[in-house]
């Protein structure tokens, strides 16, 4: 007697709590394809459960050490310095070992911040519209569209020679620049034939120099920190890559896909999207960097690293200023780095060490609480009392 689909599903329901979602779904999918008797079904389920239990990490396993080794070994094979980005040759992006170190050190700013901006469907298909978004994002200063600036001492004025080719490419009109320059107080603006002259009443040379600098530093459009934009067609959509990163402002621009747009600045992700997003970003960034070099490391190790880095709500580094430096035990900290300082500080403040960690016990010469060493014997009170009575 073969079981009906319904009977199988009913039996599976009981497993939903016991198995992780992906395993449960795979099992369900496979069982829907075959005809089984009740006896066979029980056997399959029994085997799946047995193997799942078998695959679990055992209590006392030194997962941290295993993660460290699993990431450490492949990283010795990484190209020491690689500065290019697969796909976008125009952008320089730190990759390889320097990038891994940067992530794990939880640097405030990555050495080469960059964003990958996806667009909403309507914009992603249309080159015109995609370019429009790209232009709105790339930051543009007066300096970027001025060929050269000059101080004309005879007429005491500042001359800005416009880069007309560049302006055409960036679709920027002279009147936009003039309008922007009007924000400088007390300045008289004249424009003719690609030259803008700025006049002040009774200026000193110093005033003119100051004026020239102020004019050049005026922000015309775009988002702060995004210095370069590259638009690329990928499979069936346009994607914008940028040098520099400003997730918060970019997400607010019309046409940008809020769900997929990302940055390689993990601290920024933490600020804008929260700690959980930062955790995911750490995992993805490390994995992408490793995969780019053809190295495969099980995600579970990376997940552990990311979890450790984000347990207390902020992204903190692995190492002296983060995870290792904040351990509760003095001896563990002293064993890591800056030994004398930690011991001295502990002596001054009268710190107490519970001797619960691994390093502490190695130092003291006791069995380490790891693996089989984790088990302790506990005696039942009644048992002891009954012995005394006897």
């Amino acid at each position, binding site marked *: 007697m073969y079981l009906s689909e319904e009977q199988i599903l009913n039996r599976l329901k009981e497993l939903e709590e016991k198995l*992780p979602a992906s395993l449960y779904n795979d099992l369900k999918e496979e069982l829907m394809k075959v005809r089984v008797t009740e006896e066979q079904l029980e056997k399959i389920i029994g085997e799946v459960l047995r193997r799942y239990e078998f695959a679990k990490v055992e209590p006392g396993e030194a997962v941290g050490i295993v993660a460290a080794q699993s990431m450490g070994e492949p990283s010795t094979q990484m190209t020491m310095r690689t500065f290019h980005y697969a796909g976008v040759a125009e952008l320089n992006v730190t990759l390889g070992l320097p990038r891994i170190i940067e992530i794990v050190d939880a640097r405030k700013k990555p050495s080469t911040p960059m964003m990958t901006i996806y667009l909403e469907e309507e914009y992603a298909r249309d080159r015109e519209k995609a370019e429009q978004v790209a232009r709105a994002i790339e930051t543009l200063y007066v300096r970027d569209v001025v060929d050269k600036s000059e101080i004309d001492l005879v007429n005491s004025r500042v001359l800005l020679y416009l880069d007309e080719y560049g302006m055409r490419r960036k679709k920027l009109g002279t009147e936009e620049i003039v*309008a922007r320059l009007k924000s400088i107080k007390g300045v008289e603006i004249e424009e003719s034939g690609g030259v803008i002259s700025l006049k002040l009443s009774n200026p000193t040379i110093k005033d003119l120099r100051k004026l020239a600098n102020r004019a050049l530093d005026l922000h015309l459009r775009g988002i702060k920190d995004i210095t370069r934009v590259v638009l690329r067609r990928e499979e069936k959509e346009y994607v914008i890559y940028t040098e520099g990163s400003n997730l918060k402002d970019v997400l607010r*621009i019309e046409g940008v896909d809020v769900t997929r747009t990302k940055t390689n600045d993990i601290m920024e992700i933490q600020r804008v999207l929260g*700690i959980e997003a930062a955790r995911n970003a750490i995992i993805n960034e490390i994995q992408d960097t490793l995969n780019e070099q053809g190295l495969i490391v099980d995600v579970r190790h990376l*997940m552990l690293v990311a979890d450790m880095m984000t347990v*207390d709500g902020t992204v903190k580094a692995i190492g002296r200023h983060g995870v290792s430096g904040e351990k509760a035990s003095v001896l563990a900290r002293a064993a890591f780095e800056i030994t004398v300082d930690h011991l001295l500080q502990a002596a001054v403040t009268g710190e107490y060490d519970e001797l619960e960690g691994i390093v502490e016990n190695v130092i003291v010469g006791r069995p380490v609480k790891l693996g089989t060493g984790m088990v302790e014997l506990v005696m039942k009170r009644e048992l002891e009392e009954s012995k005394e009575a006897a």
Partner: protein
Amino acid sequence: MRLRKVVRLRRVDISKHELVPKHEVLSEEEARRLLEELNISRGQLPKILKNDPMVQKIKAKVGDIIKITRKSKTAGESVYYRVVVGE
């Protein structure tokens, strides 16, 4: 008047971002049951800052426990808990 091209800005719902998992505040009862089951105190849970963008979005208060349903690369879905802490 500024002739600067006016870029339309909008409000962004960060919870829609693919990096952000689902965050929910546990009710008092659920929180109590969770702590009992794990046999730990609130302070032993992983933390999340009260000024975290997602905490502000779901309007959780300091001391609340947040249930986070992550998309896991290995388990399909996994549940994590964090307690909201002040600075």
